[in-house]
């Protein structure tokens, strides 16, 4: 083989593998991505029952109910609309009413969100970014620490006032 043929073989193989990778990516992107929705999105966009989404917001105060066999139900709100969620299993360590949460699952025909995973923030000041954005959109974001106990995300890295004691 001449140098040119060898180079063509190489380039051909390279393009082939890249093509394969691109095809896989496109195929996977079509089927396996999950859209994030706020409760308002869910209500207004009429998300179809059974399609897999992420639902994020705050756990509405006073809605957390624990049933038998680790069944849990609560409502996720963005201050405007709220969506009932049911989940079976162990909630994350930092799951609490009034705090940010992201759940993944699908709506059933009755309008309840059946979550199969619940992600909560990992420390007391962390707010999932999507949740923070969704709340800002609804005008319920309070960076000064009032409101929904959201103090953290916006101010967490700011230095405390001089002499601050906790």
């Amino acid at each position, binding site marked *: 083989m001449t140098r040119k043929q060898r180079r063509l073989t190489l380039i051909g193989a390279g393009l082939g593998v890249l093509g394969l990778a691109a095809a896989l990516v496109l195929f996977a992107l079509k089927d396996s991505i*999950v859209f994030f929705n706020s409760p308002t999105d869910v209500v207004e966009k009429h998300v179809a029952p059974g399609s897999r989404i992420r639902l994020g917001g705050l756990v509405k105060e006073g809605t957390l109910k624990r049933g038998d066999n680790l069944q849990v139900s609560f409502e996720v709100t963005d201050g405007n609309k709220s969506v009932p969620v049911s989940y079976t299993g162990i909630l994350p360590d930092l799951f609490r009413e009034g705090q940010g949460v992201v759940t993944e699952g699908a709506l059933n025909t009755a309008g309840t969100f059946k979550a199969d995973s619940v992600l909560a923030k990992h420390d007391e000041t962390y707010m999932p970014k999507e949740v923070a954005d969704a709340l800002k959109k609804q005008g319920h974001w309070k960076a000064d620490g009032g409101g929904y106990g959201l103090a953290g995300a916006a101010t967490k890295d700011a230095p405390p006032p001089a002499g601050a004691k906790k």
Partner: protein
Amino acid sequence: MIAEFGHYALVLALALALIQATVPLWGARTNDLTLMGVAGSTALAQFAFAAASFAALTAAYVGSDFSVLNVFQNSHSAMPLIYKFTSVWGNHEGSMLLWVLILSIFGALVALFGGNLPDTLRANVLAVQAWIASAFYLFILITSNPFLRIAQAPAEGRDLNPILQDIGLAVHPPLLYLGYVGFSISFSFAIAALIDGKIDAAWARWVRPWTLVAWMFLTLGIAMGSYWAYYELGWGGWWFWDPVENASLMPWIAGTALLHSAVVMEKRNALKVWTILLAILTFSLSLLGTFLVRSGVLTSVHTFASDPSRGVFILAILVIFIGGAFALYAWRAPALKQGGLFAPISREGALVFNNLFLTAACATVFVGTLYPLALEALTDEKISVGAPFFNLTFGPLFVPLLIAVPFGPLLAWKRGDILGAAQRLMWAAALGLVALAAVFAVQGGGPVLAPFGIGLAVYVMIGALVDPIERIGLFRVPFATTVARARGLPRSAWGTAVAHFAAGMLLFGVIAESQWNAERIVSLKPGESVSVRGYDLTLDGLAPRPGPNYRELIARFTVRQGGEVIDVLTPSKRTFPQRSMSTTEAALLTRGASQLYLSLGDVGSDGAIAVRIYHKPLVLLIWFGCVVMVLGGALSLSDRRLRVGAPKPARKAALQPAE
């Protein structure tokens, strides 16, 4: 005082880095040996000041000096001493300081051991290292100064994030950074070669051990992080395809490709331009990883301490370095001389195959990680790309790669015999098929993927051993001859076999864990029992226990198998009042390479506690695989040819008398 000292040392380190970044470069251009010599001494001095700065911050932490803002935010006087040390890098500012410290260590190592490098190459390499260092010193001093004071010192600190209070954290970030930052050496060498406009096999011989060292640390770092997430987060998962995990995986894949292409360059003087590109790419991905983790652009469990305003600075570093490197590459690479020829079916061809698939796999991870960011920036639509995406893309690309792995070492350089190699791999393939059939028969209607995955893993493991077994003539020649041959076989050949074998082990563990794990989530009252895969667990009782800076609730489980008590497990739930956070301490029972995993949930109103129990078959093979892979790297590193200061290649020595 100590904080000001650390701050001052950092400023001096920056000044030294700026000198190191410019003077030697000028020396290399004007061929002035004195100016080039500045590189070595400034690199060492810069390391000394970076180390002093880091020591100062460590002293502030160990002494619980809460007048330093960073210490106040991330430490607590009651914290065990070990965590006072580790919390130095358990936060953004400190971890960036660790980053530059490691960068300066690598620079100092090149200065110390680079005596046999050509002068201009050494000067250029150290100058490029100093550019990177300067950028990060500036980043720390301007946006993330760990030495800021609080006017009135608080009496007590806010404590370190409890999930970081773990021995895993002591080890994970330094190892990971040694890997990330270690790739800066191959980057600097690549840039230096582009500046110089010449590159040869000696260059590859120099770059390969550094790349190998960085790759080994990164492998260990990722494995350690994975194990830490496994036992500390309480979910029993060892890989989540979380963007931050991907951020460390991408440089690892690119680094693996670089290791392989550097072999071709060293042995056959081919693939030069490609190797340079990979070196640039690998470190660019390391920088990207730093950016993703440190800028807070990601929604991720790892972005504990992030701040978007810093992101802009790191993004600027990213754009300047990656953009600059690629521009230089586009300008200078065509001038590099073409290397040796080889047929598509040859050792070189196999390594190219490896490179193609690794880079394609890396690209899919890249797309999966950054696509959500790009989409959100462009359309405001928020999506998450999770495990299914990566399983669908990464998985299929790794299958042909793994099938090809045993072929590589069996093919000759320049022109190989693929049929011959296939014949020699008959046994490996046959055993793989036997494993496939056996798994299929045993598990019956179990997961479909399992038999194929296990079959492939067995094939890779056996296939990796074919080359050394044939070369030492195992069972064909007298045993003494075999031993003698085994000793005579180059360490790098053993290293290759061991590392490839480890890839098979890793796959075995991944398949076994993902396909056969059993999970039970139950709510138990004291005295009640539950059974998982033949293990009967009885909850004996719950008891509170105080800790140094937390309270914990311990559950006592007696584990029985076939009626006999085999162990007592005590998973616990810790509450850290300072941060009003709690963590789950899982309890693990190791039987062979399999583990029983217990973690606690909440206590219900009826006094029952939620318990998550997993049985994870052969899960430890995942991390053993990584460790064995690193051992393979270490074997290869100990090969005489690669040892720093090894004699120059014979070809050159033969040429010298003629001069």
